[in-house]
């Protein structure tokens, strides 16, 4: 029963044209990055590439998926998560279909979990798609010989794929946490754009606040503070401290978002 609902939710999401356009946009990112690094390498030695992870991209195609997801996590992936969360409840309310779901003999908590499942499945799908395209584009444009880490060690292809898999899970979890908060907003309005605007504004404001060292007491509460630490996946051996903290931080947001959305849905008049 519930699996059928899960399945139909994902089918509905995939059928929306904007989902497909969004996914197509996402796979362009790793292709553009690979192409950009490749052309930069043609222009000669060390053309002042991007800092951090970007510095080791040259000839190291397996890092492209990680680099792509790491960059996209700042804006693009939260945007995608917020679109799906917006469509899930506010979009249905706008089309009048949510009323039908609320009066249906299905528990509203179950409705929320179906929406959350749709969000999770689609996030995982989008992130994995970006990673796979990243591996292909990175290998094609930049070549690969295992995966070079930030620590200067070279991992075998299998180990490299394992790291990419771990990073996919970590990034997906961050997306789901943001999406859960967006679902809470989504349950309060009939306008999907309000959900997207609110989510993106929050993410951007968080990132701006994160720049002020005078506000460092606030930083541990911001979900965006956890993003940079995920790069530890590319260190060898992997330090688990920051990765664990980031994931726990996102878990707190997931609990808060889901809880608020549940409260709102249960108390909502049909």
């Amino acid at each position: 029963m519930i699996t059928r609902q899960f399945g139909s939710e994902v089918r509905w999401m995939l059928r929306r044209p904007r989902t497909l356009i969004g996914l197509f946009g996402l796979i362009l990112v790793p292709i553009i990055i690979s192409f950009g690094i490749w052309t930069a390498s043609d222009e000669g030695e060390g053309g002042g590439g991007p800092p951090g992870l970007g510095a080791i991209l040259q000839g190291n195609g397996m890092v492209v998926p990680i680099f792509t997801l790491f960059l996209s996590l700042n804006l693009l992936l939260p945007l995608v998560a917020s679109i799906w969360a917006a469509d899930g409840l506010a979009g249905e309310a706008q089309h009048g279909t949510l009323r039908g779901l609320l009066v249906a003999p299905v528990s509203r908590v179950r409705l929320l979990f179906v929406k959350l499942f749709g969000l999770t499945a689609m996030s995982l799908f989008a992130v994995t798609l970006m990673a796979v395209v990243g591996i292909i584009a990175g290998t094609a444009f930049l070549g690969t010989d295992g995966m070079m880490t930030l620590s200067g060690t070279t991992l075998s292809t299998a180990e490299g794929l394992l790291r990419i898999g771990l990073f996919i899970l970590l990034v997906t979890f961050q997306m789901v946490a943001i999406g859960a908060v967006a679902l809470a907003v989504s349950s309060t309005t009939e306008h999907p754009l309000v959900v997207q605007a609110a989510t993106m504004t929050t993410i951007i404001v968080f990132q701006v606040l994160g720049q002020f060292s005078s506000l460092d007491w606030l930083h541990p509460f911001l979900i965006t503070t956890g993003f940079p630490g995920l790069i530890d996946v590319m260190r060898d051996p992997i330090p688990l401290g920051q990765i664990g903290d980031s994931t726990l931080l996102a878990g707190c947001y997931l609990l808060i978002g889901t809880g608020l959305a549940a409260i709102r849905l249960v108390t909502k008049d049909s």
Partner: protein
Amino acid sequence: MNKRKVTLAAAAAGVVTGVAGLGLLAMPAGAGQPPSLPDVSAESLVEQVMTSKPGAFGGTVEVDNKLGLPSLAEIPQLADGKHSARIWTDGNGKFRAALPNGQSEQTIVNDGKTTWSWNSADNEVVKSEHKADEPKAGNEKAESVDPATAAKQVVGMTKEFSDITVDGTARVANRAAYELVLTPKASEKTLIREVRIAVDAELKMPLRVAVLTNGASEPAGTVGFSEINVGAQDPKLFEFTPPAQAKVTTPEAKEEKGRDRGSELGIEQALQGEDPQIFGTGWDTVVGARIPAEAMTQVPAEAQGLVDRFTKKVSGTWGSGQIFTTKVATILIADDGRVVAGAVPEQVLFDTIGQVK
């Protein structure tokens, strides 16, 4: 409806748990109850620290720095703020250190024959092969973040000039430790009030060093393990193969390139140079040197700007120059190239600089 109430309560509990979790994550880890350990005399603890031979271990070192140093591109880990580094050693001179700097990382590996220094920011490996008689060469920079080594040096240099006490116990990196406190004797003219060293009760290996200065209750600097596991480490950690795409250079070539880095390096080199002149003993030791005249005039404009920003112009019977003050050290650079530095107030430097040859 009862079911509805249950759902609401569960949802509310979820929200509360999430908020509480955020609060918990934001809280600094508590120090916990200090362990109770058998009494030990200060003298024997110092003796044990100096003779202890830490075996193999791996761990994470946290550096909390409030010294007021400007950030140097060379050693970002020394800039004010919190930094962490991971170090591993096999206890026999092989060593690995990973110094993260934002999204890049510097890795230093001493495999017993060669020291490799890798920097992901410029995709470059500096390879220095050891001469036969210096198996530990090239470890200085890596070891500067190792609390065990740092503490031993402090104790070795100052134990004759300090009152040494054991001040209770502490828990560091989940290990029981004694707090060894070195207080400079009253005759020492130093900025430092005391140095607290947490010594592992079992291994007698220093786990944390905190430097407290006069007039401040918080340490000006702390170097300590936040995590340590003692025992044999993966031997693979002490091997390094330069990545295929990396440039491999030697320290000599690297130095050639960095020659025009400006005065800061000039001072550093002068103070570490062939024969720095040492004045005094103990805590108020002053190191003096003379920067060659050409190095003084070769300072690029922007480096000069940097120097001016962090220093104060001073003059006296000894001449005139610039003074650079941090909480734990003072550096005086005279306009004629004489440099003196020490963990002392500026007056001591004014009195000493006349003796620099």
